[in-house]
């Protein structure tokens, strides 16, 4: 495998290459889990602020968390998912992420 923009050639087995490619391209989802402390208005406010969601969408997601125990609030590449989880945790929301099969 030749790294783009470089003359360095790294020998990898086809299986390893597929695994690395999977890790890079595999989408992740950011979820908020229900917790007994956070105020509904606070969760809605933070969802609007971080993701730029409308009040209606943020409220729907907040209610999904409240009633269903969790809600997927964003899906995309891992690096960005980590950033969103960090931002949500900065506001003490119970945010986690997981890869999508």
């Amino acid at each position: 495998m030749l790294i783009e923009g470089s003359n360095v050639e790294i020998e990898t087995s086809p299986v390893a290459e597929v695994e690395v490619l999977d890790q890079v391209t595999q989408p992740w989802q950011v979820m908020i889990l229900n917790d007994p402390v956070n105020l509904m208005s606070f969760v809605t406010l933070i969802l609007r602020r971080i993701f730029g969601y409308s009040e209606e969408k943020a409220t729907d997601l907040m209610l999904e968390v409240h009633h269903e125990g969790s809600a997927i609030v964003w899906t995309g590449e891992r690096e960005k998912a980590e950033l969103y989880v960090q931002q949500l945790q900065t506001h003490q929301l119970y945010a986690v992420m997981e890869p999508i099969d």
Partner: protein
Amino acid sequence: MELINNDDDTWTLSKVSELEHLMLSRLPESADSTGCEEAGNRLFPSPISPEADLDNEKKSSADSDWKEYIEPELRVEFMDSLKIVADDLGKAQIAKDEEANCYEFNIPTAHADHWCSALNQARIVIHYRYDLPDEDGVLDMDPNPEKWMATLQSEIYGTLMEFLIKKVLWVA
């Protein structure tokens, strides 16, 4: 309690009763999760979902990276908010009301997020430290006076958070 807009990028929290003032003065220490593992785990959770389909090695690696690089940042941000709020609280003044002594103090609009952070940190720690019930607004006369006071403290913090969210931070 009343939250009044001063039109100079500050808000005045007025008509703060002695009890409310006492509870607010406990805010910084109440947000300290030391000695309460459950609260610490909730404030600094793993970034990986408990249901994630990841092998143990990958999950463990993600957790340790998070602990090394992200958790210290979260701790600094949480601590910064607590310091700012402690400073605002230290400037509280006694204001004579018709019937009793009340307190009032200013909250700069720029500090509103720090206030929400500090109040929320304290509510989370109180909840786990005193094993409070999950339902909102439950203020039964618990036979354990410490637990009853903790519930009241958490309710007061929640009320102030609602004020700040709806009056200061909410954008239509």
